[in-house]
């Protein structure tokens, strides 16, 4: 019997030690790396377990300024900005994140240290409390003095996966592609080189227009449950005297038009009204909170798609769902001051101005349909499909 137990324990310890040791040392997903050479290395375009790597980075970096949201914010918002000079800034937005994931990240960062400023990108379709595509398990949220120990255990659990072992071996064997930098190398912002490579792989911007517009519609939001959860999260941030800037992502006008053709526009208007009301209530309680709308039909979002312009790329967009960081700079400039921004790009939403704003949006949509018949027809077809 003793031999049986010894063989059992020795065999398990050897395999566990070998796999865990290799994965921990190689750490192909950077789940416990920050501010070192490993983070700066070129790697594959797809970031796995980015919720794990970013929560770890936040716990180490302890940012004062935090960006939240999904891949749009992650790609679009640069962390170097004059208004934040001298402060630690981290882009904690996550590809595939739902509102629930962003709320978890906000709680995590606020538990690490009280935040000075939060910039939070929102979209109607992803505004739901469903689990996003991020592997963001609630256990990753910092909560108290035992967090480092708990996090170590979680990391130990995560490194015991065969998938990671495969990626570790590929990396050790030099078989991992070296395309672009990790988002950790840019304080959380996704490297545009990753996106450029992937767009090229899809067959260029032109080929990505339809699938990305269709994908934008998939989300379960906006939901009432999401609004309540956001309200609770904002209350907690405001209680810590955090300055909050919410903004509606400037996805391409085609995506907004597809929402309209999919019959979701009324829900979007109600969502904007609820957001404006929420912001107003928090301001009345003394919170420094503002809400901006960059979406809709303006000089940035109505840029012609390659099929209409004959160009291979778009200046403002990677594809209709994701804006480039030149647009992100305009967003930051509108909210915090900086370079000149087109007059029609970005409006602060308040309950008082909302009816006129929505009216203007409807009129702009009609104008868009007249002036961009190709995009409008595509959006309509995608929504109907």
């Amino acid at each position, binding site marked *: *019997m*003793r*031999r*049986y*137990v010894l*063989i*059992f324990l020795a*065999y*398990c310890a050897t*395999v*566990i030690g070998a*796999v865990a040791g290799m994965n921990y040392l190689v750490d192909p997903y950077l789940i416990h790396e920050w501010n070192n050479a490993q983070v700066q290395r070129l790697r594959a375009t797809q970031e796995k377990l980015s919720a794990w790597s970013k929560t770890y980075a936040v716990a180490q970096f302890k940012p004062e300024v935090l960006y939240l949201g999904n891949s749009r914010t992650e790609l679009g918002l640069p962390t170097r900005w004059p208004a934040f000079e001298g402060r630690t800034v981290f882009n904690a937005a996550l590809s595939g994140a739902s509102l629930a994931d962003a709320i978890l990240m906000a709680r995590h960062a606020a538990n690490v240290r009280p935040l000075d400023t939060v910039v939070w990108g929102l979209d109607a379709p992803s505004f739901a409390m469903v689990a996003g595509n991020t592997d963001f*398990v609630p256990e990753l949220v910092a909560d108290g003095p035992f967090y480092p120990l*708990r996090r170590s*255990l*979680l990391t*130990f*659990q*995560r490194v*015991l*996966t*065969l998938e990671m072992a495969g990626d570790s071996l590929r990396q050790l064997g030099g078989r991992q592609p070296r395309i672009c930098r990790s988002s950790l190398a840019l304080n959380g912002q996704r490297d545009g080189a990753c996106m450029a490579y992937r767009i090229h792989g899809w067959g260029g911007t032109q080929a990505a227009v339809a699938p990305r517009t269709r994908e934008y519609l998939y989300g379960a939001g906006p939901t009432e449950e999401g609004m309540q959860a956001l309200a609770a999260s904002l209350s907690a941030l405001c209680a810590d005297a955090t300055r909050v800037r919410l903004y509606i992502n400037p996805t391409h006008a085609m995506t907004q038009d597809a929402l309209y053709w999919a019959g979701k526009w009324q829900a979007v208007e109600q969502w904007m009204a609820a957001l404006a009301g929420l912001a107003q209530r928090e301001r009345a309680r003394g919170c420094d909170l503002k809400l901006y709308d960059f979406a809709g039909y303006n000089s940035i979002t109505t840029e012609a798609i390659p099929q209409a312009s004959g160009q291979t790329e778009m200046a403002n967009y990677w594809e209709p769902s994701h804006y480039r960081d030149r647009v992100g700079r305009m967003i930051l400039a509108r909210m915090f001051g900086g370079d000149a921004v087109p007059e029609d790009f970005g409006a602060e939403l308040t309950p008082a101005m909302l009816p006129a704003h929505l009216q203007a949006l409807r009129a702009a949509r009609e104008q868009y349909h007249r002036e961009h018949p190709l995009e409008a027809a595509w959006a309509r077809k995608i929504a109907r499909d």
Partner: protein
Amino acid sequence: MLFNSFAFLFLYLPVVLAGYFWLARWGGEAHILWLALASLFFYGWWDVHFLPLLLASILFNHFAARVVASRAWLTFAVGVDLVLLAAFKYADFLTGAHWHIVLPVGISFFTFTQIAYLVDCHRRQAGPAPLTQYALFVSYFPHLIAGPVLHHSEMMPQFARAETGRPHAANFAIGLSVFVIGLAKKTLIADQLSPLAAPVFAAGAHPQWIEAWVGVLAYTFQLYFDFSGYSDMAIGLSQLFGVKLPLNFNSPYKAADISDFWRRWHMTLSRFLRDYLYLPLGGNRHGAMRRYRNLMLTMLLGGLWHGAAWTFVVWGGLHGLYLMVHHAWRGGGKAAWWNVPLTFIAVMLAWVPFRAPDLHTAADIWGALAGLNGLALPHGLQHLAPQLHWLSPSFDGIRWIELEGPGLPMLALAALLAFFAPNTQELFSGHWTPSARWSVAMSTLFLACLFSMNRVAEFLYSQF
């Protein structure tokens, strides 16, 4: 803390085991106290707010055991236990209002365990025990969250024996191996079946025939492998400490009739219901009609034990009905080939309200099983429309079941294992040997479980 979590496997368990055997070397009851404290810590890990409730319940019943010789005190003490259980578990159900009361984990298990103890003290079949042993009996972590429902007569003597605290290689070998079998049932089988069942049972899913059968079958096997896996883990863990827990499952889906099923499924709960409910109600002593009444009452209350909802009442009522029909028709005839499948189908149909969120959904799924929601086939089979026209199928596709992926093969494997493979105790009494080959096989199985445990799933039975 779940048994299938890394915190439990690599931190809690080694520390508690080491402390237990180290303290046992010095004699006395220190190791019992250590295990009781570790069990309370284990419970507090779930939600520390309910720890005072468990402690108060232990202290109250410990002292009540000294006075329950009188019937009035027994009634009072059992009444307090039941009121506590009712307040947390049945307040919404009984009042029809939403009190937003969070259910303390394992409250049904520690309440029933202690009621049995009080009743036996009243019957003079048990005497007051030292507080440390009693606290450990109630809070003993392997069983605390999801059973087995322990009986003091089989636990207290083990805690009192000095031999229990001595490490034995045989206990480690068998305990580790039984634990691994349970872990594999949970992580490799039950968790893989969950995605097949959950969408079909969602409110408003309105599944069609194929979806309903696959979903209900998947849940039938998921529940068995989940719960029997948990029981195996509890038994294996307890064996590591030198404490034997009672068996809780004995291949229930091989049962040849519904009475047989209840002798094989959640055996410790069946035993409790028989000894402390069915027999005190009169059992089969006062004629057929009283027996049927007692069977129905026992099963209805057994249903309510699982949860405060009409769906559980219907589940219990169905089993009560099955038992009545079985007893009415039992004529000592020869076993027929269809006994096992018929029993299985009856049990499976009863799991529908057990799992469904409401009776409307349960009725819809029953209808779907009978073909009332139509038959939808994958788009790819459109070319077979002429041959299949007599089934009047649509070719709208299978919405709620992922045809690709590990779910369906795992469902087939689960069925084969449940119907034809030896169960855990048969495996260890007739096949397993402490050989190097078995050791490597068990450790490989353990590693397979470990590598599949990226996400920790809750045990289904901890809800009860």
